[in-house]
């Protein structure tokens, strides 16, 4: 379970995004806008993105929560909450 928060977590999410879509221009990324609208993401891209987040952060996002990962802001918000929850439940996880 990741200990990253805030900007570090945001950077990790962008890294995961670039792994899936190397052609994405990180500087032009609108954090509030859905990836689907910005980069033409499809369901395979989402699955790969969630897989990359899991590999980097140790957070396995359930499928029902995918809509909350639609944008960069949404990702950071959701993952911070998930990491905090996980840290409380099991600090050695």
């Amino acid at each position, binding site marked *: 379970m990741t200990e990253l928060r805030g900007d570090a977590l945001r950077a990790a999410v962008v890294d995961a995004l670039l792994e899936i879509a*190397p052609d994405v221009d990180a500087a032009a990324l609108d954090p509030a806008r859905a990836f689907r609208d910005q980069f*033409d993401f499809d*369901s395979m891209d989402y699955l790969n993105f*969630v897989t990359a987040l*899991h590999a980097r952060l140790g957070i396995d996002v359930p499928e*029902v929560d995918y809509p909350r990962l639609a944008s960069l802001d949404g990702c950071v918000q959701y993952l911070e909450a998930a990491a905090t929850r996980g840290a409380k439940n099991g600090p050695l996880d």
Partner: protein
Amino acid sequence: MAEFRMPSLGADMEGATLTTWMVRPGDTVKHGAVVAAVETAKGIIDIEIFEDGVIETLLAEPGAYVAVGGSLATYRSLSPGAVPQAATAVIAEPAPAATAKSALGPSSAAERPPMAAPAAVEAARAAAERRLVSPAARRRAAELKIDLAAVRASGTGGAVTLQDVERAAASATSAPPDMRTLIAQSMSRAKREIPHYYLATTIDMTAARRFLDTWNASHGVAERMLDGVLLLKAVARALEKTPELNGFWRDGRFEPSAAINVGVAIRLRQGGLVAPALQDTNREPLAALMRRFQDLVGRARAGRLHRAELTDATITVSSLGEGGVETLYPIIYPPQVAIVGFGGILLRPWCADGTIRAAPLITATLSADHRVSDGHRGSVFLAEVARLLQRPEEL
């Protein structure tokens, strides 16, 4: 002595640029070993040798454009009782002038002295391992006076490919012209030569969605599945009963294929699409097929497919996914004889058991070749796809 030649990676390919040698003179290679990577409009493709042997001479340098059938290397065959022959003999003996054109060396591979300098091979290998800029891209960038630092890379490991350079040069257009030309050629040929017929049916995806929701809720992200894999498997299984939709039209007759290798139409980020094959689609368990599907999409988008994946598809499936469009009318990819289209899964009224309810529905279409089959067989096929999707756990 046998010759390793540039293979044909599809009816629409005339040649390719050698990117990397994976072997050097003196290396022993096994049947099926990847010996080189070449760059085509469809990305960087690994090519294999189809005989056991010892590599003798590398005839082409990285960066050289070699026509289909042109010599790439010579090797000594180790196959028992082997007759000296080309590894992938597509053209028996091409005219030397058409064999290779390289901006660096002599115009013909036949005239060129054997490339024996290990240092050159070593340098090429080191460059390839760093995977920063393909040699072809570097040369083209120099020709076009393009600053490589400003070119966005799409290759594996962040490599700048030839296409990236071309794209940077033609910054006004989003699709690489080579890819667009290839698609236009194939589709024009299909429209000209294949007497298509078209069928469509609507399929209730309630059972399939429920199966996926249950599976995905109880499996970690690495084992989750998408709707697409159910569609691919259902098509492959249905083809077992309608073999006249699976195979090739060649030399004026139908060649059915025993193997069912479904080609998957994959949209590329830079525009265009490729349809590489998932070999033996009908035989693989769903979960394993999903991982191969995922891997295939990833490599297609990174421009890193294998030769067989570009040549072995016996039918194609094109799925528009969640874009919201209901029906797709696909065009057959020659020399195949059928293509299946799926629109998006949309919530629509569905009438069953005397009631109307809202259900996730998908429209499946079939375009098939009238020289081989007719509407009746096509409808048997689509009905079987629909039936299989009602029992996803048995796929």
